[in-house]
């Protein structure tokens, strides 16, 4: 009988955080199972206990260097709920701009820095060239566009928040400082070029799709649910709204779900082989309640974007498939459409007559023992849920991060790609790179998403000098 083998891809490259993939082969060398293992652990849910709730936005921003703004916003919204205040309208608009800028810079990082080498140079390209520098060599304009677009988003964050990483400008009750006239004008000055880059890159990406027909067919191309936040009119939104769940046919299976009641319809499961929890839609159970979040899901659930250029692109995107757009390869195109929307939308907000208003913070003491804040982060819906005591100290915290909500789908996608491309007897770089590339399509942020303590799988092995396992303890 032939030996059953395991192929390990460790680490997975060009993603945010640390992980590995194992491909389990049967006796004939065919891929039988595949797993995406997240190997890092953060633990924010536990070590924020005992801290004053007012510190939470700043603490939570430390979760991630790529999307600190998303954590700031979700955390501040949870704190708003603890204060039981309605924040000033201008503060809400400024938070929206902040969040949109975050999406632009994060999506630009994902597409240009991490995935464009695969899209421009091909899945089989020399790994030494499959990076941003290889892209700049082959297509300098594309590379420069990526840098300029990311910088556009980062500079907005820096102007509003004072710094581009871990800004502390979003606070419970609003924001700490109003927008200045000069900063508003400086941001607006960059809008035309950002729009031009977004449009140019969408055109380029659509032009490359034909080359990736095979990948589109096998990169996470399966039925699942999709979840995202929509406005009352069904429009795309990143800041607030209600949750909508659609199925693979594109039919709405649940609408007007209150994000503050996420625990009624979302569950989380811990697997022994990963520090990343898997979220699922409770009414369908585990694992049948598999759902996807992020750009692909948001565009599948949204009826419209609400800005002219993005709406044109969304209409075309919805034409890709009569049902929901199922292939995770299309996360890339969805990401670019969202960049376009964000630039258009932040321009609208910056031109709002109220945007320079000085009243940007509501002050209050805690008025509720529990608060939930939800927002759409670049990678999908983000929930922060806090409980405090009479002194306003955090007693319990739960974070549901987008990447965890995509965990089931990422694992299934890895298996699908591996079964399509990997032949156990003859490995090539291109085969294994495709397995990594499907993970990149989701743009997982692992630093953001591994927080539960006391639940994570733990295995300690006692290994002898010759490598033999003498004893093992599992939890």
């Amino acid at each position, binding site marked *: 009988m032939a030996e059953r083998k395991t192929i390990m891809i460790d680490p997975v490259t060009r993603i945010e955080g640390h992980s590995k993939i194992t491909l389990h082969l049967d006796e004939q060398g065919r891929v039988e199972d595949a797993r995406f293992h997240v190997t890092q652990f953060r633990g924010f849910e536990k070590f924020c206990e005992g801290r004053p709730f007012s510190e939470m936005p700043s603490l939570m921003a430390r979760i991630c260097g790529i999307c600190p703004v998303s954590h700031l916003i979700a955390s501040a919204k949870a704190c708003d709920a603890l204060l039981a205040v309605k924040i000033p309208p201008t503060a809400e608009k400024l938070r929206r701009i902040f969040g949109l800028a975050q999406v632009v810079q994060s999506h630009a990082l994902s597409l240009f820095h991490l995935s464009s080498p695969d899209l421009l140079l091909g899945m089989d390209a020399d790994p030494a060239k499959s990076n941003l520098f290889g892209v700049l060599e082959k297509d*300098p304009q594309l590379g420069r566009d990526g*840098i300029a677009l990311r910088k556009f988003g*980062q500079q907005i964050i820096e102007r509003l928040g004072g710094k581009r990483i871990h800004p502390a400008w979003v606070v419970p009750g609003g924001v700490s400082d109003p927008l200045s006239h000069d900063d508003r004008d400086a941001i607006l000055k960059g809008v035309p*070029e950002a729009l031009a880059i977004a449009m140019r890159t969408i055109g380029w990406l659509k032009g490359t799709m034909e080359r990736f027909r095979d990948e589109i067919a096998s990169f996470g191309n399966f039925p699942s649910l999709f979840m995202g936040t929509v406005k009352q009119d069904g429009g795309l939104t990143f800041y607030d709204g209600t949750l909508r769940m659609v199925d693979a046919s594109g039919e709405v299976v649940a609408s007007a779900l209150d994000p503050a009641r996420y625990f009624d319809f979302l569950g989380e499961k811990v697997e022994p082989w990963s520090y990343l929890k898997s979220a699922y839609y409770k009414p369908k159970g585990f694992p049948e309640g598999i759902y996807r979040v992020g750009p692909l899901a948001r565009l599948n659930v949204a009826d419209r974007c609400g800005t002219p250029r993005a709406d044109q692109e969304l209409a075309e995107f919805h034409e890709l498939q009569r049902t929901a757009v199922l292939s995770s390869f299309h996360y890339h195109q969805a990401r670019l459409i969202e960049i376009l929307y964000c630039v258009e939308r932040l321009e609208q907000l910056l031109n709002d007559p109220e945007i320079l208003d000085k009243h940007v913070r509501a002050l209050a003491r805690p008025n509720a023992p529990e608060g939930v804040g939800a927002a759409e982060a670049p990678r999908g819906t983000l929930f922060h849920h806090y409980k405090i005591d009479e002194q306003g100290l955090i007693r319990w915290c739960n974070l549901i991060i987008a990447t965890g909500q995509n965990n089931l789908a990422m694992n299934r996608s890895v298996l699908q790609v591996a079964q399509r491309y990997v032949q156990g007897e003859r490995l090539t770089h291109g085969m294994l790179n495709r397995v990594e590339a499907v993970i990149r399509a989701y743009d997982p942020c692992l630093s953001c998403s591994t927080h539960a303590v006391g639940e994570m799988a733990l295995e300690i092995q006692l290994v002898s000098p010759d490598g033999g396992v003498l004893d093992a303890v599992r939890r």
Partner: protein
Amino acid sequence: MNSGDKSGGVLVIAYGNPLRSDDGVAWRAAEEIRTTFASRIEVVCRHQLTPELAENASQADVVIFVDATARGNAGEVVCQSVTAESREARFSHHLTPSQVLALCDRWYGVSPPAFVISISGECFDHGDGLSAAARSGLRQSVRVVSDLISALQPLDSTAIGSVQLKISEGRT
């Protein structure tokens, strides 16, 4: 955004981790440099050098990198001229000054003269304070930057060449 119009002037790029004690000395130096020179120079603080900085550098007449180092005697300040490095970078998370300049040359077609000011530290543990040696180095580094900027005026090739020569001969 790169508008294609070169704004010119001196760009100071201070980098390091301000939450790792002496590793943040460049940020503190940058604050003083910014105060001293106000609007005459552009100062940016970063945790590490990334490809985006090539675009900033492409807009400058002169680039001054300021960094902490674990090498040398604590408190020592060394100023060196630096040029674009031909060795290709493979990772975009962390670059050297030479690699930033190389990217600037390749992507934007310009190669501004540049200097690296290294401040030797002795404590790189968690914390936002500086050791006595790093504080001394900080003061000295601000003087070095100040002298350098003065020597570079007017910002033309003659002044820059003269400063580069002095540095290479150890006369600064």
